[in-house]
């Protein structure tokens, strides 16, 4: 199972093995990773699973679709490397991905 690193804005991190096919958001919620709220449950309707992906991963990840970018407008402190973790589906391509959660989600 691919290893995903969840890091908070203080630099504390946890490495979790997430099953292929789950989203990065689900990997966090199922493993009680704080900092990812996912209020809407993954329907891309709330921007509370917002994460920053490590710069080098930006181009390797499937590009965000328009609706995701629109929703990121409503996230807490969006940056260029912002993504919604509910839209990042785990596969072996994501082995070693590092995501950082923002100071808060709402």
């Amino acid at each position: 199972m691919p290893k995903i690193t969840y890091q908070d804005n203080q630099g504390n991190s946890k490495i979790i093995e997430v099953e292929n096919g789950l989203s990065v958001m689900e990997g966090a919620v199922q493993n009680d990773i704080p900092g990812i709220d996912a209020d809407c449950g993954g329907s891309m309707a709330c921007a509370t699973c917002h994460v920053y992906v490590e710069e080098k991963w930006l181009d390797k990840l499937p590009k965000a679709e328009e609706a995701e970018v629109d929703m990121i407008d409503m996230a807490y402190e969006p940056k260029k490397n912002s993504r919604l973790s509910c839209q990042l589906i785990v596969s072996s391509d994501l082995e070693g991905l590092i995501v950082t959660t923002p100071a808060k989600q709402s």
Partner: protein
Amino acid sequence: MKKIDTIVIGAGPVGLFAVHQLGIKGLKSIVIDNLDKAGGQCIELYPDKPIYDIPALPECTGKELTNKLLEQIKPFNTKFFLNERVEEVKQDKENWIVKTNKNNEFSAPNIIIAGGVGSFEPRKFTIKEAEKFENKSLFYAVRNKEKFKNKNISIFGGGDSALDWALELSKFSKIYLIHRRDEFRGAPHTISVIKKLEKEGKINIKTPCQLDSIEGNENISSITIKFDDDKMENIKTDFILGFFGLIMKLGPIAEWGLSMKKKTVEVNSKNFETNKKGIFAVGDICNYPGKLKLILSGFHEVALASVECFKRARPDQKYRFEFTTSSKTIQGRLGKK
């Protein structure tokens, strides 16, 4: 203080169906919601997105579902208190007293919390100074546009609210429209009008950039925005408007002494009562083993909760289970002959 059988908090699909299940049992309810209309997340987040898992409705949008539910509860003439948030819940012997932010008070033996993920509130600027100016010269909604006449206004956001207000206020004020990226996500027609006004010099568009600081003492004098390439620009500003959409906040529910798990209220799965007798939680906000956050689960939850509500509101009567197909009493309550 108004007395009623059940206070329903939240006018989403599950709150609306609660009114139905209570109504056919002869219980009167009122509904309180922080939004300006019924429908909850269905209306606020996905009015036009199709839902495929409502039993017997192969496909319907959030808006259609809401309208159907409103039609279904019409016979009960339920009073809605919209734009209103429940602030306080107090016990008064067998009853609960609910107080809203508009100082309305209700008393009932039952409260059904159908609050979804909490109440919708505008997402705010994250820089510290923003709070100091909030509701003085920085706003997240326009209540009275007269206030904004002949001023320098900086509008932040890329959606319909930001664009619509930029258009409207540009008629009599100098507008800066500022967004974190180059693309706007408003209606295509609005975007083209905005671009035209930009050419005519009536609206200044600044992208991709974000608010860096606000200058001023009592009132705002200017703002500094930071572009993606780290370039800074100072803009003379009297008023700031921020339109970043709505977020859901649990709000005061967390302070009512209910047993909570993360942002949800713990209930039993027999009648969805919380640790407080007479307070029920249903829909997305409740939590019990196996809970699924589906609208259809919420419908089931209110059906069961309403039975316990009946027992509490009519302690001297015996609850009789009835079908709508055969019960003359229910049909009468629905206005059918």
